[in-house]
């Protein structure tokens, strides 16, 4: 079963002679449970494609379906609702809300979903334990290392059991040891929970963990390899 499909997807920034074609004719079918990397040089369209799939940006043309819902036809509120209930995000930096503790950051999405306090507390404790942050629940982001912050972000992305997790350069600000630990964590979670992961990266270490690798160049799919 497909979690994400893109049909004839285009994204153009600017108009006329200044137009930049960030994505051109992208056709993609991503199965549920996939562990997929989008790679390519800077400006190849990785982040743009990730943003389109996550409903953070709208395509100029084409169709995007996530969990059987047409993302390209949704309004702002519907997009927010879809992100809330079906997609988890891990960004490169500024991932966490600075005024909330690690546990509160993890519970943030569940609170938006209106989940009862008891359930939230149980789930957040379990996931923080799973990502190896047990005992650090009450620390604020400024009191955590970069790797720990990314783990909190991963915990937050997974805790509400979304259909899809989108990670944009999740290891960019981490040393190689922390990056390897994070990727092992994501891989384990993918295997254990069956959650679909789409990760954009430059990092060869990240690519080595991918089951499927899509290389983009100048907004087009250059290579689509299943490893």
């Amino acid at each position, binding site marked *: 079963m497909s979690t994400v499909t893109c049909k004839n997807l285009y994204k153009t920034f600017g108009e006329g002679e200044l137009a930049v074609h960030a994505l051109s004719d992208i056709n993609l079918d991503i199965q549920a449970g996939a562990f997929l990397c989008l790679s390519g040089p800077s400006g190849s369209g990785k982040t743009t494609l990730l943003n389109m799939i996550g409903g*953070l*940006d709208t395509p100029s043309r084409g169709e995007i379906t996530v969990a059987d819902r047409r993302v390209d036809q949704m309004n702002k509120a519907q997009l927010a609702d879809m992100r809330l*209930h079906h997609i988890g*995000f891990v960004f490169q930096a500024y991932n966490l809300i600075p*005024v909330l503790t690690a546990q509160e950051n993890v519970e943030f999405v569940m609170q*938006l979903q*209106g989940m009862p306090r008891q359930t939230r507390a149980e789930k957040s404790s379990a996931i923080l334990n799973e990502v190896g942050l047990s005992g650090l629940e009450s620390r604020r982001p400024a009191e955590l290392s970069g790797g720990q912050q990314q783990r909190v972000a991963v915990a*937050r992305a997974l805790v509400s059991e979304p259909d899809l997790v989108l990670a944009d350069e999740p290891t960019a600000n981490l040393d190689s040891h922390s990056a390897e630990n994070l990727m092992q964590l994501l891989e384990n979670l993918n295997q254990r929970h069956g959650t679909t992961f789409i990760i954009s990266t430059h990092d060869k270490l990240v690519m080595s963990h991918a089951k499927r690798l899509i290389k983009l160049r100048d907004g087009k799919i250059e290579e689509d390899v299943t490893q």
Partner: protein
Amino acid sequence: MSASHAEENRSLGTVTAMLTIIAWRNIWRNHRRTLIMLGAIAVGVWAMIWLTAVMRGMVDQMIVDSIKNLIGHVQIHAPAYRDDPSIVNSMPAPTSALTEALQDPAITTWTTRVRVPAVISSERESMGVTLVGISPEREQGLLFLPETISLGRYLESAQDDGVIIGAKLAERLEIQLGWRIVLMSQDPENEIVDRGFRVVGIFDTEMEAIETGYVFTGLETAQRLLNMQTQVSELALITQDYRHLQAIVDRLRTAAPGLEVLPWQELDKYLGTMLAVMDGFVLIWYLVVFIAMSFGLVNTLLMAVFERTREIGLIQALGMKPSLILLQVLIESFFLLILGLVLGNLLSWLSIIPIQDGWDISALGVEGLEYAGMSAILYPVVLANDVILSNVVVIVLGLIASLYPAWRAARHVPVEAITRI
């Protein structure tokens, strides 16, 4: 309530609780900026409440002093008396219906007077004055006497046949306490009547027009002089609250058909206008202070929103709807406003307490207040309405002003906000 409604309410409660926690912590992310903003709101609120209390105190004092200058809160006359305050426009003593209406618990005291034009003559000078016949025991609170008597004594009864005159009048007539004068006026038949009186008291009000304009004697003495029998020129009364008189005036009009019943605002248009202007001034003053304050508030919130652009993009990416982002900024604004109001009200209270028993503004070098009908001792007047209005203005208009930064925050496009450096 259906299960889905209960579920929705619970969700809304959970989300609002979360937004409240984030908003509270957000306002303390920049302590210095928050404290400056709270200081600005507190000073603004203090300026609203304290200055209004002082201004109201001034106006109140002027009104109370003026009311004691023979006006009272309400007067009853024959219809033509105010156009021609002569003896021919006098009225009968109060009827039983009117006397009954005057027993209203809201009416503190009332009295009848004779008040006619007359000429006072000494051996050296003659001057036009108003002869006022009073019942001294009934004038408590209605008249500036006996507090202002500087020489001699106050009238003892309505039958007292001495006269009390102002110090300036005594000076112009070149007479002293105990000397005799002659008062001359007209009776109802337009015949000249006159009589010699002894000056038993001299009053000093510091207001020349009062001191040279009025001569007081006993009510019955004046009635005998003017051949009026029990007729009087006016009935004056004071109530417990000079601001709310309409109900009393209506009842008295019913009880005294054919007579003119007027509140002090109509008897002294200047004073009435002053009170109305004061009410308008308070509102304008509040708006001016608020507008100055709102620039700071909007700027603070805009700065806070601008600094958190990426964070706002993040929470949008996580699924927070624009309406909730708007709500979060409004909650932050609400916290700032409430804290500022608490401080402002506290500051106002602390600055009013030391002067509540009177503030001698002559110590500030203010002189000549008596010519404006004002006392040098100022008693601040804090009206609950003024305090409520200032708080409501700050909260309601503050939240309205905060809509702009809140709207700016809510309209961020997530991807632009996240990628902004």
